């Protein structure tokens, strides 16, 4: 959404008050100061809890800072070289990327399908909206408690359902090749509601003229969906996909509670590795280095997306 910053809106306030226009200059200039007092409280918390930790973290990534020892030494780029050679960094990064792919695709497509269906004007709007959005309101622990029970090997709903259908039970959270998919399914259920609302809001603000014209010309519902509505939603889809990928890359909470990264590290995302190294292994310096490498990756991906997004316009 950073793309839509309206530089145009700033021209008015930015115009220097010293111009010779005279008449309106007095009104332009803020009489009680230049407005910085309004920004000060924010700058204070921003500086303390955003800039400070960013700088501090960067510094720590060049040290052997540890929760166990108060003695900290500068170690140069050692942490970074170690991270590049650390197979756990690469495998957890791989897990993060894999999760991002298998969760983002359905999170965009299912949300779109839901919004189109709800928007199509069938009765009971509020009930559909509630069903799809309600999970988004749940705290992560509640979501994982419910799904741990759904995925429970013997008594859980998933395997009982398979049993009723005469199929073999699946180790939803214990099978290395299945666990990440189970996590992704949970995530889609939990967070699709937000994307759904973004799409719904977009659909409600679309001009209906093209749709009406096409309908008058005898275009069927299916054809109008493909040729008019979906193309009109391209910008929204770009935005939703961009936000979703960034959100998926940051996955940690649900995995940490659901599987602790297991079985055998197969679901451990890079941010959990940072947590494990920093808070369980006490190596804050190394954890900082890994999180900065990850941040660099996020920035890189954002820039690429931003470029694509801009070109689309």
């Amino acid at each position, binding site marked *: 959404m950073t793309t839509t910053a309206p530089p145009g809106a700033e021209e008015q306030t930015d115009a220097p008050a010293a111009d010779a226009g005279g008449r309106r200059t007095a009104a332009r200039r803020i009489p009680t100061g230049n407005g910085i*007092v309004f*920004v000060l409280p924010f700058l204070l918390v921003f500086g303390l809890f955003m800039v400070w930790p960013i700088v501090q973290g960067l510094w720590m990534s060049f040290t052997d800072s540890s929760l166990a020892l108060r003695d900290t030494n500068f170690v140069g780029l050692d942490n970074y070289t170690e991270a590049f050679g650390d197979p756990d960094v690469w495998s957890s990064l791989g897990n993060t990327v894999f999760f991002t792919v298998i969760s983002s695709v359905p999170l965009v497509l299912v949300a779109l399908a839901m919004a189109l269906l709800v928007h199509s004007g069938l009765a009971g709007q509020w009930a559909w909206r509630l069903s799809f959005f309600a999970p988004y309101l749940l705290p992560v622990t509640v979501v994982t*408690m419910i799904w741990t029970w759904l995925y429970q090997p013997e008594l859980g709903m998933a395997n009982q359902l398979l049993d*009723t259908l005469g199929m073999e039970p699946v180790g939803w959270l214990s099978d290395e090749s299945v666990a990440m998919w189970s996590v992704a399914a949970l995530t889609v259920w939990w967070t699709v509601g937000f994307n759904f609302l973004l799409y719904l*809001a977009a659909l409600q603000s679309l001009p209906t003229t093209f749709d009406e014209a096409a*309908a008058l010309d005898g275009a069927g519902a299916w054809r109008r969906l493909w040729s008019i509505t979906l193309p009109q939603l391209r910008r929204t889809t770009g935005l939703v996909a961009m936000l979703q990928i960034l959100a998926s890359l940051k996955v940690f909470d649900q995995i940490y509670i659901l599987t602790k990264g297991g079985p055998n590290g197969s679901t451990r995302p890079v941010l959990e590795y940072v947590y494990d190294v920093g808070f369980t292994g006490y190596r804050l310096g190394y954890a900082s280095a890994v999180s900065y490498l990850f941040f660099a990756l996020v920035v890189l991906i954002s820039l690429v997306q931003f470029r694509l997004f801009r070109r689309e316009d």
Partner: protein
Amino acid sequence: MSATATPLRARRRPPREAAGSPLLLGHGRLPRALAGTALVVLAVVWLVPFLWAVVTSVQSEEDINTTGLWPFKGAFTLDAYQQILERGNVSVWAFNSFLIAGLVTLITVVVSTLAAYGFSRGTFRGRRALLAVTVAAIMVPPQLLVVPLFEQMLLFNLVDTYAAVILPQVVAPMMVFILKRFFDAVPKELEEAARIDGASEFRVFASIVLPLSRPIVAAVSIFVFIGAWNNFMWPFIVTNDPDLMTLPVGLATVKDAYGIEYAQSMASALLAALPLIVVFLFFQRRIVNSVATTGLGGS
């Protein structure tokens, strides 16, 4: 309730929450039936986990373990809820969650609204640069800050306090950006009249701009509240004292202690889920519209 102020920014939003566009489906029977079926199937899939949790929570542990749940043979009982409430932790955590999410929302909204106004109307030096830094900060994943923030809290001796949970959460560059965009679109004529009459800048903000911005402030408040209520990683790291934990953190710590007590596990999950679901039922239209208002959706 929003009717007074939305027109300022309104795009072409339908006046009432529209019943969708019937055009999308046309008048054919078949597409309508297909869409209806698909919608029902999706809704059922989305509701089943809730239903499963509810059904589990009102049975006894023995029934669940002996007969299994399929197809819900056990007798109805509220034992699980009673046990949870007697243990008392859940109510302490719920109180903490309300207190913490409430304070985070209050502070964030006040600080961000003021800042957004300053960025929108201010003429101070470095305004553009500061704004650019703020916007760039939207990209920073909060998890990046966790390790150094924890060190900082150790330094301030704040670990295991409400302050430590609350303070780092009040920095919301995204909200500043959303609010600033809104203020930019508020016409300045009204303010100029007041300024000429000698109103102080704060007066202009509080009595002219703020009342016009109620919908966007409400939208921002709702999202900040949901975010703070559900926040997990930071409160989890910075609290060890069970009396200071929020619901998500507290439940995570006892989740394993429940072991195979599924009825109690589901009962506590549902109790923790209830407050926000109720909030949503009350503010449904506000929440749905706020997605559009914040400018995240649409154009």
